[in-house]
């Protein structure tokens, strides 16, 4: 039995690197420090996996040799006039580097999952820029933390504990004690409520008025957390203040905030369902902080306005720097989605949606992004790496994806691999294969190899290299 420390967790963008694993006979038997998602991954990652490459024959996926699968995959890619290479955010930078070379070689379009998460954020960064930092900077210094349209409690469970409210910094103290006492108060209130309900069948504690003004404590000099969202989330419950906005109105709210922090007046009494007086107080608190930060989630990028919501948020942050120090950071989802943008950018100049069909990188999301290409039914083959578009793309998009030859490289069985024509089961990167990945704040960290993969499962990088070599060979023979 061995204990391995300092393991990075290949699940979400928080990319915790303090995980401890207990390993016995090439099996992980215990996990320390991880959240529920991390623990689930380390303990049961291998529960549903196939071990051998699969090739579709007569409509059925059947086991095949590695050589046969590689040959078939390479042929599909070489024959395609406009192939898509999609996924990448759940694999290592090393594999991504090979993927880019493959995309260039076959003249395809390479896109990553940020196209359907923070792609819009990138579009607006390209218009405005972004004032950001690494997470430690906030742990040490931030006294005002906004989670805007994001729910770290569910999507990035250790974010608050490691980097914001409950972390101990040089200039800012953890607030977890205060939270615990508030929480226990809330819990006993709930218990009491339940008892009362049983007896009296009516509410004695009415739920607090949503549109109330801020509590006095928000104006005290201490670390504070504000959640802005369309519905009360678990994160919102932990916050010092929750600002509930109407769905699809973040843009109006953010733009209005830009005026309010400059003490300018609005012609309206209410924005996004919130009274302007309340917003004025929010503005006061923003301007009065020592270092504030917006963490924003997919609530901005996926709802009406998409990149323009982020555009307004980036502008608001920029404007706030005239008055105090304010930073902003997207809550990136997958453990290496930041890395995939970074690697794409250094090799091609662009972070996602890159079209190599003319022999050099071209970029225009909306035109060269995978959803649009599929919606217009332009692609004639695809390679999916470490991603599950069949489960996550809209139905019409999926229809056009699965009607053409489909290659999947994935350690797991997923809806996408079930519909693929060639499947390469790979090793789990960060558990069975090593590499590099980038945390949501651009900090690169190593992915570790903890246990040996099954002999038939190569890493994504190795599989891609094999396909690339085969493609090289076929193309040489063609010429």
């Amino acid at each position, binding site marked *: 039995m061995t204990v391995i420390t300092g393991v990075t967790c290949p699940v979400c963008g928080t990319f915790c690197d303090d995980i401890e694993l207990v390993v016995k006979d090439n099996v992980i038997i215990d996990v320390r420090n991880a959240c529920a998602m991390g623990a689930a991954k380390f303990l049961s990652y291998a529960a549903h996996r196939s071990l051998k490459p699969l090739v579709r024959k007569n409509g059925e996926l059947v086991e095949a040799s590695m050589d046969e699968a590689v040959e078939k995959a390479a042929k599909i890619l070489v024959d395609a006039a406009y192939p898509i290479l999609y996924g990448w955010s759940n694999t290592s930078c090393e594999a991504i580097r090979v993927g880019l070379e493959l995309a260039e070689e076959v003249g395809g379009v390479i896109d990553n999952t940020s196209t359907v998460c923070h792609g819009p954020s990138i579009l607006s960064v390209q218009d405005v820029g972004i004032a950001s930092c690494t997470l430690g900077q906030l742990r040490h210094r931030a006294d005002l933390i906004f989670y805007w349209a994001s729910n770290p409690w569910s999507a990035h469970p250790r974010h608050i504990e490691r980097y914001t409210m409950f972390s101990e910094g040089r200039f800012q103290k953890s607030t977890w004690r205060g939270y615990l006492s508030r929480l226990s108060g809330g819990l006993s209130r709930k218990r009491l409520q339940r008892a009362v309900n049983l007896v009296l069948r009516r509410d004695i504690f009415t739920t607090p008025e949503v549109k109330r003004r801020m509590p006095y404590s928000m104006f005290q000099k201490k670390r504070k957390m504000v959640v802005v969202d369309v519905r009360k989330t678990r994160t919102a419950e932990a916050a010092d203040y929750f600002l509930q906005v109407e769905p699809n109105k973040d843009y109006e709210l953010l733009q209005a905030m830009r*005026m309010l922090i400059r003490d300018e007046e609005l012609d309206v009494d209410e924005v996004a369902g919130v009274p302007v007086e309340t917003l004025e107080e929010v503005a006061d608190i923003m301007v009065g902080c020592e270092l504030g930060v917006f963490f924003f989630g997919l609530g901005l990028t996926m709802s009406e306005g998409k990149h323009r919501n982020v555009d307004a948020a980036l502008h608001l942050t920029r404007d706030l720097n005239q008055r105090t120090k304010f930073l902003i950071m997207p809550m990136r989802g997958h453990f290496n989605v930041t890395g995939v943008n970074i690697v794409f950018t250094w090799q091609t100049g662009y972070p996602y949606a890159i079209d190599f*069909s003319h022999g050099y990188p071209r970029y225009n999301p909306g035109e060269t992004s995978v959803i649009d290409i599929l919606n217009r039914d332009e692609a*004639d083959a695809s390679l999916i790496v470490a991603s599950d578009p069949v489960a996550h793309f809209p139905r019409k998009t999926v229809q056009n994806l699965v009607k053409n030859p489909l290659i999947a490289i994935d350690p797991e069985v997923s809806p996408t691999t079930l519909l693929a024509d060639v499947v390469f089961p790979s090793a789990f990167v960060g558990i069975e294969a090593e590499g590099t990945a980038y945390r949501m704040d651009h900090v690169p960290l190593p992915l570790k190899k903890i246990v040996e993969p099954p002999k038939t499962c190569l890493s994504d990088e190795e599989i891609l290299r094999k396909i690339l070599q085969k493609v090289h060979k076929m193309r040489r023979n063609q010429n």
Partner: protein
Amino acid sequence: MITLHPKHPFKAPVDAECISPDVFAEKSAKEIAALQIWEGNRKRTLSGLFKIKHENDSSSKEFTIRICGDVSKVRKIGAKMSKGNIIVEGDAGMHLGEEMKGGVITVTGNADSWTGSMMKEGTIEIKGNVGDYIGASYRGSTQGMSGGKIIIHGDAGYEVGCFMRKGLIKVHGNIGKFAGIHMRNGTIFIQGNSEGRAGAQMISGKIVVCGHIPSILPTFTIDNVRPKVKVNGEKVEGPFYRFIGDLADGGNGKLFVSKTKNTHLNSYEEYL
């Protein structure tokens, strides 16, 4: 005049920057046939994808290219052109007339996104509908359309006139959200309805909405009620509410919105 007929329906995008009167005018029939064109990642020739017919047409002094058939997958038709005519009888693909410097493009069907993006001079007329980002800039750039006219008889999509600097975009039908986003100057004239957020983050310029708009951004302030408004020399009868914005960006753009079609906005009148 040269007429092009697509030989087969296209699946992969076709990049046809060479379909421009400037390119054709200086070339022999053989050279035109051999012009390089991309279909997906395959290099083709113009004659490989299109039937090319040369006609001597003395009636028009200007060089004209006529495209008959569905070229909705063919991108960059007329890009960078500076003279002559292109007539598309059917649907045209993206980036139609991109960075155009002069001449006229007419499309009888629909056109796609980025039509007339970064155009400097000339006229584009679309009889059908268009996609998004009409007259816009390239990603990351603030140099949108800087002159010329785009006339759309049908509906237009989102972010029309993004970072527009000069010129006119006229939409006879309805328009999507964010018309005139980040607009620096120029005019967008919408005869139909707007889905909203018109003029977001505009610095200057003029947007006229003759139809319904669900709401005005809170960062606009009402300035006046005008009986009519002048668009490119043409008088449009109102009355119109005149809003100024986008104040969040320190803008001084003018947003005219029909008063009669937008009675829900009459609460603004108390600020006058």
